[in-house]
């Protein structure tokens, strides 16, 4: 149904472009192109520190992660749909009023996401690299091959998450079992063969040694994942009304030592009852980080002895900062507009919830550090991870207020976010590589983080709130 597909594409474009103007949004892929084009000139320098194969690995891992993010963002059942699209009558809900099946709409939705985000992210990245190839000395055929294999990485990530989310909506237990099975299989493989399973990642294998058979096998795997996700898709929302005993009051009382405890209690109940807390933890936190760990561990030879856990801690910190988007995606200012609550109070409440949820990355990175590097690195690594997470969330709150997952596509916002975060990341990586105890210096980041959140509250209070 080409009509539905083109309408979905238009709808996605208009949703983004109305937020910050067509021109500004259209500049987003141009910016990606520009960054990669210019970044390609740094390749000779980077190659001195990292073998070319490692860099290719990282690029493939990044696009796999991008696929995870794009897929995981929207499709954890109807509630995620509601959060992403609001209660408006969007095309994804057409089955309610038009003779279209929900499965067909879902299939179109997946295809739309593939094309839309391919043109938004993947193609500009590949095109930037290809355009720079005459100057960087990379053969054009290799640059074209990289575009192909990065696209496959992205598609694999996207389709795996769509499949898992379809499974999740149908049976949370089955989804969890599937994830555990994959994790255990990777662990057993590593144990028996002594080889990192990331080395078996099909798009990277294809990039290393292209063959038409391998290409067809990879494409077939993606097609199977896509078909399985559509077949397994089961629309939610038909169940009877859910009832709960009163918990909010008691929870708010328990948390009364925190500022804005009713808002924090409400956010925690939202996360728990919607199932999104578990879904986000799985799709946006644990799975990406486990995959990243496998990929990063390939760099072990190029890093100082404790370098891997430091890099992983910084990465976990950045991913942990996106917990701010979990708590802001639930509601806009709208439901609070009838109450004596300001946007700044809401930002403060969401930041408090965010800080409470930092227990998750703290436990995670602490466990990884204990298992992989020994107990002496646990404390510096946890401090490093949480400091960067709080700082990055502060940047996000300042730049995006209560809409971080939408405003990230504003070119100015994204560039500012990347610059502010990159400076902190590079400095902390450098000093922590020198001595792991210097990771404690990251505590100084809490000062700009505090200032940013204060500035965010004043900045977003001065504007008409979005979402009403």
């Amino acid at each position, binding site marked *: 149904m080409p009509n539905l597909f083109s309408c979905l594409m238009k709808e996605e474009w208009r949703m983004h472009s109305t937020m910050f103007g067509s021109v500004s949004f259209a500049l987003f892929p141009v910016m990606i192109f520009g960054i990669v084009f210019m970044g390609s000139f740094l390749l000779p320098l980077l190659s001195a520190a990292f073998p070319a194969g490692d860099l290719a690995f990282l690029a493939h891992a990044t696009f796999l992660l991008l696929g995870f993010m794009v897929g995981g963002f929207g499709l954890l059942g109807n509630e995620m749909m509601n959060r992403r699209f609001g209660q408006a009558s969007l095309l994804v809900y057409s089955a309610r009023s038009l003779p279209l099946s929900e499965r067909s709409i879902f299939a179109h939705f997946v295809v739309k996401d593939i094309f839309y985000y391919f043109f938004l992210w993947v193609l500009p990245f590949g095109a930037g690299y290809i355009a720079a190839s005459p100057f960087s000395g990379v053969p054009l055929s290799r640059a074209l091959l990289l575009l192909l294999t990065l696209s496959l990485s992205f598609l694999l990530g996207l389709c795996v998450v769509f499949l898992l989310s379809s499974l999740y909506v149908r049976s949370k237990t089955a989804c969890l079992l599937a994830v555990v099975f994959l994790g255990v299989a990777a662990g057993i493989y590593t144990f028996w063969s002594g080889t990192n399973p990331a080395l078996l990642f099909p798009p990277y294998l294809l990039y290393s040694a292209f063959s038409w058979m391998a290409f067809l096998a990879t494409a077939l795997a993606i097609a199977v994942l896509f078909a399985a996700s559509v077949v397994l898709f089961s629309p939610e929302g038909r169940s009877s*009304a859910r009832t709960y005993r009163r918990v909010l009051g008691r929870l708010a009382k328990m948390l009364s030592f925190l500022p804005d405890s009713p808002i924090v209690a*409400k956010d925690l109940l939202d996360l728990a009852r919607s199932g999104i807390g578990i879904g986000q933890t799985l799709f946006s936190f644990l799975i990406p980080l486990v995959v990243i760990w496998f990929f990063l561990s390939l760099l072990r030879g190029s890093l100082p002895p404790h370098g891997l856990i430091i890099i992983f801690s910084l990465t976990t910190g950045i991913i942990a900062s996106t917990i701010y988007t979990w708590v802001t995606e639930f*509601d806009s200012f709208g439901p609070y507009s009838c109450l004596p609550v300001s946007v700044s109070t809401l930002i403060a409440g969401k930041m408090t919830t965010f800080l409470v949820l930092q227990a998750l990355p703290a436990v995670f990175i602490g466990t990884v550090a204990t298992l992989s590097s020994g107990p002496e690195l646990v404390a510096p690594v946890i401090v490093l991870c949480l400091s960067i997470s709080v700082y990055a969330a502060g940047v996000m709150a300042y730049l995006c207020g209560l809409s971080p997952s939408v405003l990230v596509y504003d070119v100015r916002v994204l560039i500012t976010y990347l610059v502010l975060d990159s400076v902190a990341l590079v400095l902390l990586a450098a000093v922590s590589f020198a001595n792991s105890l210097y990771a404690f210096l990251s505590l100084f980041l809490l000062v700009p983080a505090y200032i940013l959140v204060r500035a965010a509250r004043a900045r977003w209070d001065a504007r008409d709130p979005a979402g009403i």
Partner: protein
Amino acid sequence: MAAVIETCGLSKVYGDVTALDSVSLSVEKGALFGLLGPNGSGKTTMIKVLTGQVRPTGGFAKVLGLDPAKDGVGVRERVGIIPEQESPPSFLSAMEYLEFVGAVRKIPDIAEKAEKWFDILEFGDKKNVLCKDLSRGTRQKLMFAQAFIHEPVLALIDEPLINLDPLMQDVVKEFLSDYVRKGNTLFLSTHILEVAEEICSAVAILHRGRLLHAGPVADVRAHGEHLPGFFLSLVRKGGHA
């Protein structure tokens, strides 16, 4: 009588759309004031500006002596509001939502007061149901309860009867009339003209953001007209202006 709401040259422009165009009006204490207008006339924007949810681009407003553009939270502390489209948060039960409202508004004995509202609006059997699973009508009742649970002296309500069945509409109309009889003030936005004629003491008519008329309903009747006919002729004339 003292004015509880006063606007002077109030304007709100969204991009190239003028939602309110220099609106000046006054609502006296104890009035049941109806803001009437066709779809898109600026009624909802008016309520948003008066409750500090959006800032005017011109003119000013005073609500209970406060400027909502500068102290929106202060205004919302003192008034009750039923927004037109907003729903209560999805994953709280109806009872928990009223508890949440109570916690934010610092209302003592909130559980007791909530029970009273479940009785008045006859939805006690739904108090433990998640808000997302409530019917539209029940959500409307819940929004109604949250607007009045702190016993405000002024309430601004947008289409309060929409989604309610005729029996419940009767209960609500009776409550609103009683609320005003006790000396409180009600600012009601609606396009159900019969309801406005039945319960309002004064009305203002907005069309395309401009104020076409403001005055007591009795004045309309004094000219031998019914409010619906008066409204239609005025808006049609205004539409051609």
